């Protein structure tokens, strides 16, 4: 967006001087301020990322050698299932909400979110859900061990840990829907005068579309797990074949949620990258309107491809072809986005600070993840590779690297605005290179393991997979260890460092750069006018 606006920052200073909010612990418990809530989300995400990461490290420790070494097979199933659930519902999704809370009001020139109290409630519900989910490890019989997908009928047979996971999903789902309603209402109703829809920053657009997706599909998941709960405790047989139910129906419903969910975890990342690349290319984003239409197309197509996750359950060839071609069609709007980011960089005055490194890294790893996705879309190929490590490699490229790298790019980009200090560029670059190298060491060989026939979700494997598994484990541990650098950078930056200018990146555009650094407690008490 062009900086054609006349922001009024005088009110910002004036109000902040007498900001009347509680201090100490009560500030954080009762806060309705979008920036405070954004920070709380980040703290929650960091804690859960640590837990999910430790589960991953344990999984890789067990898989370092064939045979059983560290954990029992049943506990291994809990580890893989809970690693997925935690990383999806307690890390990636809330991390994007953290960015939304911090940035959306500032980017559209609003004082705060439309429903500040509901915003607070969304966050604390999420925490309750997270605690319930982690608590399920201590339930008799252990935590959910039926995969993050909780497929019936396996999930109908487990102990109370499964019920806790179901309730955790309900609570987190309510939190997510409330958050989405808040975000949509904020974007639709609280934009600064003159900021038309097609003048909104791409990150705001990406969140608007993501929030609509969440409203549509989180209730679908809630419905699926509610039926599961009824099957488990109230004598229904929705998914129990012995009672006339249909386990495959669970898969249909789950993936009707599950595939849009995949885009919920990447669309805001597209928005973040679309903010970072123009700033460090010192050029406006190439093809703004086509980016918006591509986001919308991806969101719409996400509802038409769910059964590509279940080609092996048996379905008519016509249905296989339909889902295969629809899946391939998604490559078109995705290609538009990759093309536009590249075209934005083309002949730009590029510089390679940490945010830009992560943004370019994002394009690279996302393309690998995208292409392997295209390969998996081909029904006969997928039938061979279903449930192998190829799939694990594919979705970790999209989710770990692409989603995470987009967030890292944005974190380094906005950290000066949030803290008022510049981060340590050297450490940031070390963080990027170590993450990039170890991620690829850890996850690229998974494709070869999958092609060679190694199944996923197993604690033991045949001897011929040993060498590559060792490489994968070393890469994964290295990647995990590299994230300690991020913690150091963020803590250092929050505690002090070189003073950040109001607009530390010369190519940055947007309303958030017109307010002081650090961003005052209340910004835009008087809405800026966007021309």
């Amino acid at each position, binding site marked *: 967006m062009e900086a054609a606006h006349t922001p009024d920052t005088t009110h910002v200073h004036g109000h902040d001087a007498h900001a009347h909010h509680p201090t100490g612990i009560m500030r954080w418990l009762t806060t309705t301020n979008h920036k405070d809530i954004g920070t709380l989300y980040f703290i929650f995400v960091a804690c859960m990322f640590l837990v999910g990461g430790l589960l991953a490290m344990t999984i890789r420790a067990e898989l370092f050698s064939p045979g059983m070494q560290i954990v029992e097979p049943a506990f291994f199933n809990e580890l893989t299932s809970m690693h997925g659930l935690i990383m999806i519902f307690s890390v990636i999704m809330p991390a994007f909400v953290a960015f939304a809370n911090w940035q959306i009001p500032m980017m559209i020139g609003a004082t705060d979110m439309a429903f500040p109290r509901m915003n607070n409630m969304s966050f604390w519900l999420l925490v309750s859900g997270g605690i319930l989910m982690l608590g399920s490890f201590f339930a008799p019989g252990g935590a959910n061990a039926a995969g993050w997908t909780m497929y019936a009928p396996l999930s109908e047979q487990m102990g109370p840990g499964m019920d806790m996971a179901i309730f955790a999903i309900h609570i987190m789902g309510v939190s997510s829907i409330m958050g989405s309603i808040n975000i949509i*209402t904020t974007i639709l109703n609280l934009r600064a005068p003159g900021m038309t829809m097609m003048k909104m920053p791409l990150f705001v657009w990406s969140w608007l579309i993501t929030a609509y997706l969440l409203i549509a599909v989180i*209730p679908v998941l809630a*419905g699926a797990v509610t039926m599961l709960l009824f099957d488990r405790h109230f004598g229904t047989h929705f998914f129990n074949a012995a009672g006339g139910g249909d386990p495959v129906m669970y898969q249909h419903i789950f993936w009707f949620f599950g595939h849009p969910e995949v885009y919920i975890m990447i669309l805001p990342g597209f928005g973040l990258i679309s903010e970072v690349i123009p700033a460090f290319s010192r050029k406006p984003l190439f093809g703004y309107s086509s980016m918006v239409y591509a986001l919308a197309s991806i969101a719409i197509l996400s509802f038409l491809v769910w059964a590509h996750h279940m080609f092996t359950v048996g379905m008519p060839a016509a249905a296989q072809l339909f889902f295969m071609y629809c899946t391939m069609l998604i490559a078109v709007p995705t290609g538009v986005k990759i093309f536009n980011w590249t075209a934005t960089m083309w002949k730009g005055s590029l510089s390679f600070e940490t945010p830009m490194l992560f943004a370019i890294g994002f394009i690279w790893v996302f393309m690998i993840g995208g292409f392997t996705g295209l390969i998996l879309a081909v029904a006969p190929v997928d039938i061979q590779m279903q449930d192998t490590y190829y799939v694990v490699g594919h979705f970790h490229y999209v989710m770990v690297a692409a989603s995470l790298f987009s967030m890292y790019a944005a974190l380094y980009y906005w950290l000066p605005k949030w803290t008022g200090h510049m981060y340590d560029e050297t450490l940031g670059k070390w963080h990027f290179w170590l993450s990039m190298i170890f991620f690829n060491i850890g996850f690229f060989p998974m494709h070869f393991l999958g092609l060679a026939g190694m199944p996923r979700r197993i604690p033991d494997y045949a001897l011929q997979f040993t060498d590559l598994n060792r490489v994968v484990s070393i890469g994964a541990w290295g990647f995990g260890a590299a994230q300690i650098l991020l913690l150091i950078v963020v803590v250092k930056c929050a505690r002090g460092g070189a003073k950040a200018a109001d607009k530390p990146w010369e190519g940055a555009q947007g309303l958030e750069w017109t307010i002081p650094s650090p961003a005052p407690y209340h910004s835009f008490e008087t809405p800026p006018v966007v021309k």
Partner: protein
Amino acid sequence: MNGSKDENRLRARNVRTAIILAFVALGFFLAVIANHWVNPAVIVDHWFPKWHW
């Protein structure tokens, strides 16, 4: 609710938007539960029996 007329109008608009979105979410939830009784696969099977959904 002691805001100006404009502020109150904006609040009312926000609440209206939220209520509509909440009903959309509720609709999807109920549609999934109802899917057991109004299963699209059953409907497809009825009209296109040769497809064997």
